[in-house]
């Protein structure tokens, strides 16, 4: 039930408004025009961002069930929904999984994404075509992709395990989606696959921004290869890295479709995260109050990272 999301480009700070020339014929009229221009955007934000967020927050304090939809009655219950949510035996597991899933996905996505970006930074034949092929995971609908991944990861008949069978030193078939220890790993792997295009694209853009002259000057002073990376590329790429990491964390925290499609939070809650747990409470058990409470907890966690992002962003603008 989380409706807040921060998209690349639209998230964070709006660019500062350019200073207006003080040549108004009538201050009152131009003020009116300014307000008129503001109204559509404000109305949009209030309707599609403000309302859902406020509704979700209030819903977290209400007993909101199927009955509410017909009678309109949703009694206030204070923090009861939060207590129910937090004391549920699944909650601790879900919180831990959310952490592991986010950290695992981000580390994998970022590392591989950066390596790919660096690789494509040197131009070679067909690099443009290959780079656009890299975007494919982004274009495949997630439900279709997860069906294919389920087929790949199937214990008995999956392509992955059939391939592993050919390895002489490997005994037995890993139960990717049915073992409580491996399932989380499998879900993280799929999410890394899904996140690589985002990381690679943004980091590649950042690399393009670094002036070529710096490398030329560096090479004269003996900074090539790894030294060039650590002393030229990395410091200059840092603002982009911050953006990619913070947005990545916020995206990953709320991932729902990948997990629902692959394991539905199972087996035995091994891949249950706060977002899948929230979905289950709201749309399977129809306990919308508890579902909203879980959603709010997730929003709160995301908010911490969003604030970090805004602070870092402000600092880089100040610089």
């Amino acid at each position, binding site marked *: 039930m989380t409706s807040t999301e921060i998209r690349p480009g639209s998230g964070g700070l709006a660019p500062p408004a350019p200073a207006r020339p003080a040549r108004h014929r009538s201050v009152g009229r131009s003020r009116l*025009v300014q307000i008129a221009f503001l109204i559509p955007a404000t109305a949009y934000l209030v309707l599609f961002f403000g309302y859902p967020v406020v509704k979700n927050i209030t819903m977290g304090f209400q007993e909101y069930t199927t009955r509410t939809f017909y009678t309109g009655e949703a009694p206030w219950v204070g923090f009861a929904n939060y207590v129910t949510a937090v004391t549920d035996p*699944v909650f601790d597991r879900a919180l831990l999984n959310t952490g592991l899933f986010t950290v695992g996905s981000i580390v994998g996505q970022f590392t591989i994404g950066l390596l790919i970006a660096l690789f494509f930074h040197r131009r070679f034949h067909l690099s443009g075509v290959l780079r656009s092929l890299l975007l494919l995971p982004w274009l495949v609908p997630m439900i279709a992709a997860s069906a294919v991944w389920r087929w790949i990861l199937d214990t*008995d008949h999956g392509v992955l395990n059939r391939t592993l069978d050919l390895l002489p030193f490997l005994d037995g078939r890993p139960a990717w989606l049915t*073992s409580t220890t491996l399932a989380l790993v499998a879900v993280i792997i799929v999410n890394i696959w899904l996140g690589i295009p985002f990381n690679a694209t943004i980091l590649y853009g950042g690399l393009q921004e670094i002036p070529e002259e710096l490398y030329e000057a560096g090479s004269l002073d003996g900074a090539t290869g790894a030294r060039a990376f650590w002393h030229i590329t990395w410091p200059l790429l840092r603002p982009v890295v911050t953006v990619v990491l913070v947005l990545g964390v916020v995206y990953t925290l709320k991932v729902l479709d990948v997990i629902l499609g692959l394991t539905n939070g*199972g087996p035995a809650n091994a891949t249950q995260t706060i977002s899948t747990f929230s979905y289950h409470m709201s749309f399977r058990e129809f306990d919308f109050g508890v579902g909203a409470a879980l959603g709010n907890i997730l929003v709160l966690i995301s908010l911490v990272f969003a604030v970090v992002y805004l602070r870092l962003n402000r600092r880089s603008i100040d610089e």
Partner: protein
Amino acid sequence: MTRFSRSRVAIAAAAALPLVLVAACSGSDGGTGGDGGGDGDVTELHVLDYYNNDPNKTVWQGVLDACATEVGVELNRESVPGGDLIAKVLQMSSSRTLPDVLMLDNPDVQQIAESGALAPLSQFGLDPGGIAEGVLSASTYEDELYALQPVTNTIALFYNTQTLAAAGIEPPTTWEELETAAAALTEGDQYGLALSAINTYEGTWQFLPFMWSNGGDEADIATPEVAGALQLWKDLLDAGSMSQSVVTWSQADVADQFSSGNAAMMVNGPWNFGTLAENAELEYGIVPIPAPAAGDTVVSPFGGEAWAVPQTGDDARMAVAAEFVQCLVGEDAVVEAAVGTNTVPTDPSLSDTVVEQVPNLASFAEQVPDLRARTGELGPEWPTQATAIYEAVQNALVGGMSPEDALAQAQNG
């Protein structure tokens, strides 16, 4: 000046646009009753169901049309995907646009009845006829009947005739025979048994016949009877007689495994006849789910949908809708629906007519009098306990817990 004022008009219009949109959205609260309108002159009924795939879609269209003709109205039928129905109903109840006739999956009836959105059928004097007791209990909330269910289905044991014949094994009738047969039929890439122990209500549904037949009860699952049933599943898994993937298989996946020869037997229902018929080489038989010991009664849950009359506030339309629902449980409608969609009548006296036409349904039809409602005891609280059951099953099968501990945790957690 003219130019300037025109731009001001444009700005004002742009500013007002969102308000107009908001007004337009809230203006749709009019209710479905708009057209048919006035008292006594009902010419059309709005019907909502989730039969959006064939053969269900077409067969039910025929059944609904026949009843519409009988009642003397036009139909305005809307079919949504199964997963969207409840969300749609909730949305309709809050905007007061409920349909005149509403189809619901039977375990959802009490929950929607509890919300107040359904009309008690006694006010229209509807007659449930010979519908089995268990089936009626799913449609009853606080002693009032809220829906009528014409046909039902349940699960049984499907077996591959050729595989069993080649191994010289008879279809099992008891748990012990099931274990022996499943172990003997497991070889190479073929498992003895496939079932769905997935972490959704499907997994719970498949576990219920084992749990109930062993004397277990959903109100308290931390009992030796339920643990015994779970132990059977765990033994089957630990012996390698079924794949560990059972914890991720939906019932459709189970049917695929059986059809492609990866499993010699499966627990599944008659809605898979179509899928199984696609494999021309497959020959299969169906027997009831094995009982704990010889002579024990097998108690299975029942599926299928019931038809209700929502509170639309228009008494004339509701009366006609009730007449329409009564027609849907009449003999003609029931037989046509049962034969067309591979389901069995909820009224056992109609079973013979149907089984005559679809012999494969015999194992399902004979269970009807003993079928038990999932919501019979817990009513609207069922979803919570259904979740607890599949979580316990998964914890015991792959989570490394003993059946007793898994069930105790699920019951008390």
